[in-house]
């Protein structure tokens, strides 16, 4: 698609701003992405980034507890936030008349959130309920996103559970909150995105007015989370008291999403060739022809693509009947990867995947909230929001040889295999998915 208008600038305090005007509907999307996710949590504080995300909704200097929600919703808008491996986002979508109000709300909590003991205790309870809902009380809770990383990765930032263990959450202190905010929540460590029905001049003026005097603090040095790929096949097992059928999750290391984008995109196309649609290779073979599995999926990232910096994970997950063994599934998978490594896929196979990608990117773009968030996260992770508009084209340019090379790199002697076994176990403490204060 032709690039729509995109305006980018940086305030004196370091806040990066992306403006994407679009007057087709009288609504606006506003988001703030902070450059901190659960990979940056200190040891002993698993789940802290997500817990802190909840706290950011609990009031600020000009806004009592509950006021943030009430102002957004009584303006006709909706809001949410979510915590990812490398960033945390906050966002609202509202009628265009509420643009200034939304900017004010985001600026107020960036400037001076009210972090209180009472709100911390209340949100620890709420987050524990969220974890019970999404992980502990349902089949395949936390599969694969919580369960696979500790098998594939060996360092705390990459391996630990981003929902957090209950005992870690319960030990979070107000001082932890203050340190976390001062370290990571500075304007210089954030991106503000505004998309929808406004003029650039008007938005610029309002942003300067509300965010201009948020004091500058230097952005923290971002550590490298690099670690070597596994040498050999690492295996792990998880007993799930709610699961009726076994499941397997396979994790591989993949190219650096930021510095080797072409290699990363080749992996995305490969994932489509493997499991997207009835005609895809693993669906055809494992679901329909031999049938070994009930369902199978492959993808980049534990929550989807473009969500993390290096290291990122290529995942394949399958639920299968009791009488099928993990090794049967793996053997078929390895055989299909070998075929692709030896013989690049047909042009038509690639076209099927890239046309569906093009349509799904259009569809995401059509939803104002998704568009706003995509622009913000690409600005943050890639330093270039406009990449969002070039993704479909870049996907279409991936060659059959590149997909073949990507398949070749998914080696059985450098991967993690997590087996989920139905059964009863002592109830475990797990943590969980990335959605924040849901509505």
């Amino acid at each position, binding site marked *: 698609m032709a690039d729509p208008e995109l305006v980018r600038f940086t305030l004196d305090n370091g806040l990066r701003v992306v403006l994407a005007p679009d007057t087709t509907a009288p609504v606006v999307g506003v988001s703030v992405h902070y450059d901190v996710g659960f990979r940056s949590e200190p040891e002993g504080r698993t789940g802290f980034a997500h817990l802190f995300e909840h706290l950011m909704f609990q009031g600020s200097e000009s806004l009592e507890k509950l006021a943030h929600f009430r102002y957004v919703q009584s303006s006709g808008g909706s809001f949410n936030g979510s915590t990812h491996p490398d960033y945390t986002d906050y966002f609202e979508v509202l009628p265009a008349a509420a643009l200034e109000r939304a900017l004010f709300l985001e600026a107020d909590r960036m400037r001076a959130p009210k972090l209180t003991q009472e709100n911390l205790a209340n949100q620890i309870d709420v987050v524990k309920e969220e974890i019970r809902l999404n992980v502990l*009380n349902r089949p395949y809770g936390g599969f694969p996103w919580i369960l696979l990383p500790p098998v594939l990765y060996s360092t705390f930032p990459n391996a630990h559970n981003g929902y957090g263990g209950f005992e870690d959450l319960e030990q979070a202190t107000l001082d932890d909150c203050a340190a976390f905010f001062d370290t990571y929540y500075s304007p210089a460590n954030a991106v503000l995105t505004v998309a929808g029905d406004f003029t650039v001049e008007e938005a610029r003026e309002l942003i300067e007015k509300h965010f201009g005097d948020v004091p500058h603090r230097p952005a923290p040095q971002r550590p490298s989370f690099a670690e070597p790929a596994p040498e050999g096949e690492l295996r792990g097992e998880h007993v799930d008291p709610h699961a009726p059928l076994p499941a397997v999750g396979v994790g591989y290391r993949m190219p650096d999403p930021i510095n080797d984008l072409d290699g990363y995109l080749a992996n995305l196309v490969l994932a489509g060739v493997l499991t997207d649609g009835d005609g895809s290779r693993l669906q055809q073979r494992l679901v329909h022809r031999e049938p070994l599995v009930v369902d199978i999926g492959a993808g980049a990232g534990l929550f989807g693509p473009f969500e993390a910096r290096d290291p990122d994970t290529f995942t394949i997950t399958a639920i299968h009947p009791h009488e099928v063994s993990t090794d049967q599934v793996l053997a078929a998978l390895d055989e299909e990867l070998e075929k692709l490594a030896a013989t690049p896929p047909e042009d038509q196979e690639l076209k099927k995947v890239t046309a569906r990608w093009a349509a799904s990117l259009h569809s995401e773009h059509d939803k104002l909230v998704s568009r706003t968030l995509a622009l913000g996260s690409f600005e943050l992770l890639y330093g270039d929001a406009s990449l969002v508009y070039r993704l479909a084209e870049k996907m279409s340019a991936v060659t059959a040889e590149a997909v073949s090379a990507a398949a070749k790199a998914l080696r059985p002697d450098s991967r993690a295999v997590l087996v989920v076994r139905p059964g009863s176990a002592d109830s475990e403490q797990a943590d969980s998915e990335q959605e924040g204060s849901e509505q």
Partner: protein
Amino acid sequence: MSAPHRTAEEIGRTAAGPRPVPSLGTQRAAADLSHVDTTLSNGLRVLAVRKPTVPLVELRVWIPFAGEDKLHPATAEVLAETLLTGTARRDRIEIDADLALIGGDLASGVDPERLVVTGTSLADGLPTMLDVLADALTGASYADAEVERERERLIERIAVSRTQPRTIAREALQKHRYGDHPAVREVPQAEDVAVVTPEQVRALHRASVLPRGSVLVIVGDIDPETVIGDLEKAFGGWASDRSAVRLPPLPDLVGGNVLLVPRAGAVQSQIRLSAQTVSRTDPRYPALQLANLVYGGYFSSRLVENIREDKGYTYSAHSGFEFTDKTAVVNVDADTATDATAAALMETRYELARLGLVPPTAEEVESVRQYAIGSLVTAASSQGGLAAQLSALAATGLGVEWLAGHPERLAAVTAEDVANAALEFFAPKRFTGVVVGDADVLAPKLTALGDVTVGEPA
């Protein structure tokens, strides 16, 4: 986290002090939708809307699909899983390839009320999508091998589904409130699925996949006038004198005891309450909609502020309407830790009573009014959102006019209207429901609370 930092208290204030919240600017109205609402010669109602925000089309086909037969739910489920797995002209893989090359997807799903086919594709691929869809609607072959394989997968998926707390709670609620009405049979029994034959599926298709009484909604980068002709051509072969089969009317709910349904070892309980209301065409509906929002229909509601933000009993509490044909009920849902369940149910009932007795203030009413109007505008701003809205409306005979006129109806609601709706529809005695959870732990407190009995739904 030991880097030098301010205290929480220092972080929460600035020299300038609190600032006033900006007022709202002026809001322009959304553009009128260019649309056509007509019926094709085969009796299929078509709602076509131009929305060229992106070069895509969104399509929804809604076919009333009820059945009284014991095997109907299982047969319908197998049909939905195999509708798009082959015709005389295309096998399963060719269907997938034709759709993929236009960036397209077709999916079908079924419940006791209707069969739905959802489609999306790049706009210039619309002729292909319509051809594939018409091919399936008129000539799905339900090959033996496909039916047998999907039957197996369905049995495995049903096993997974029946371990989901939300599915368990939904089944318990349906049985408790509607007994053996066909509407309760949402997830088929595995043993029924196991005996469904390809011929039974073909017979159900012939008998029930019918255009008359069904609705097709198409939204996107299209010309509504032209698309009607395209549809007339594409679906020319899909015809029958009979009409699609509607679900028999649901009985009106009456209030009653909450049933505590045991789920051993659960760490969290599902609270599910339900009461009869009126549907979208009733003059009281706009006020009722606002009353529901104040109660539990959005985050800033009394229920969420009480049991989540004040007490931390739950992550998710919500109340919302469930529309079936011309009727509607309001459902209240909350998932809460075992220890907090009885207290959460008490607060949930308390808020029901309080809504009528301490009616929503002018400020509460204004807030939900703006939220309701704003949500309509936001949802309608994307092709998919608009298609979903219209498909839900069209199923009960409404259309673009209802959607366009609704903001005005919401604007006209008075605080008194909301108070009346709250008193009339949210009285605790009007509700029935279930709590699913660890009954050994829950029973003493819940039965002490009153109007709770323990057992499996009849």
